[in-house]
């Protein structure tokens, strides 16, 4: 009952007629659409109104004049080409924007990688500088040792395990410096290598692996100590953490 009353009141307001002709505000339209959706009676009235409107309007049909159709069509085509032209501009602008964004990103990226590279290069230069200083120092020390009259020169020969091993050790007790120059190392199987050790003040120090070709003309610094002892041993490929005593091929006392 209440619902019917509500519908009747709504239909009496003429809102539906106003809505039909598009004369309602957005708020009113929403209200009408709600009523149409909710009440079959309103829905039917609205559909009837629509039918009536079309039927009534058709009674007023009037022959459109010649040429109007063409005018309308060319007008719409212009609109379309206008729209298309706009679209073309829009697309061109989008492409330009994308290109700009892309190239900005490219340059930014390039700048980043250049900065990164720059940092690496700077670092390398510092390392090289340090390395060079170290080497220069080493060379200076070598010169001091070799040139000093108090430097003693020892010839080191390998034992029966490495007869062809030849090395020269330089020891200067005044400057407390000692060097060794390995002249010749007999060929070893692939899985073995020569390793150098020094026993200084009762402590065993690993001096590294000897690589025959590389180390031929190089003086290798030995830690100096009173009554120190150096050994060359044969160790498994890659070196060992402590010398294998039975594999000692040469020793140098200084």
């Amino acid at each position, binding site marked *: 009952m209440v619902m019917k009353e509500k519908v009747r009141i709504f239909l009496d307001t003429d809102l539906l*007629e106003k809505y039909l002709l598009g004369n309602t505000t957005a708020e009113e339209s929403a209200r009408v659409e709600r009523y149409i959706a909710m009440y079959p009676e309103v829905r039917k009235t609205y559909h009837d109104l629509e039918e*009536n409107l079309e039927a009534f309007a058709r009674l007023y049909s*009037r*022959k*459109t004049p010649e040429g109007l159709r063409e005018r*309308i*069509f060319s007008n*719409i085509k212009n609109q379309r080409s206008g729209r298309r032209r706009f679209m073309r501009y829009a697309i061109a602008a989008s492409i330009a924007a994308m290109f700009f964004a892309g190239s900005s990103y490219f340059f930014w990226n390039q700048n980043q990688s250049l900065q990164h590279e720059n940092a690496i290069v700077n670092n390398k230069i510092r390392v090289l500088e340090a390395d060079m200083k170290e080497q220069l120092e080493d060379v200076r020390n070598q010169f001091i040792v070799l040139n000093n009259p108090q430097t003693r020169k020892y010839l080191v020969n390998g034992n029966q395990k490495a007869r062809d091993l030849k090395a020269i050790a330089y020891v200067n007790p005044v400057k407390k410096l000692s060097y060794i120059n390995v002249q010749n190392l007999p060929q070893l199987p692939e899985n073995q290598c020569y390793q150098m050790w020094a026993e200084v003040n009762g402590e065993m120090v690993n001096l590294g692996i000897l690589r025959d070709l590389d180390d031929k003309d190089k003086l290798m610094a030995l830690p100096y100590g009173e009554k120190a002892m150096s050994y060359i041993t044969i160790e498994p490929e890659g070196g060992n953490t402590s010398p294998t005593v039975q594999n000692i091929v040469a020793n140098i006392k200084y």
Partner: protein
Amino acid sequence: MSTLLEKHIVELLHEGNDKAISLLYEHYGDTLYGVAFKVVRNEEIAQDVLQESFVKIWNKSHTYDPAKAKLFTWLFRITRNTAIDKIRSLSNKTDKEIQLDVSDVYNVGKEEIRPELIDMNKQLDKIEAKYRIVLEALFFEGMTQQEASEELGIPLGTIKSRLKIGLRELKKIYGAASLLLFTLMQWL
């Protein structure tokens, strides 16, 4: 009535296919032109209105919602509103010119008896003037029943009953027409 055709046109409209405009013009052009003319009462202005309406229809095609209104209702709203806006802008701009136009407008006697229009006018004549006036006030002028009552000086109750009878007469006419259309469609 022709829901299949409507659906087809709506589909084309939503696709942005300009064939839709061709079909719309074919099936609704004359009626919408009649609507525009009824509002502006001048051939030339009505032509402009129809042209502007079609451009609007084309540009707004994506906003049409078949769930909310019949295609014709939507077309009618656009055309009628365009016509009313046209009248307003013309009367705002040049009062004098519109005065001239108006004197022209009422000289439409000759236009009214164009042979192709006779048929429709005949049908219109089937609805008595007193009912037709109420229907026109409602559908073309966009008046509420209350407003029509005040404007026409007819009591609200009479407006209501005349509207009822007018609609019944109208139904008789288009009922017959749709029966004819239905028979034709069966044939096709």
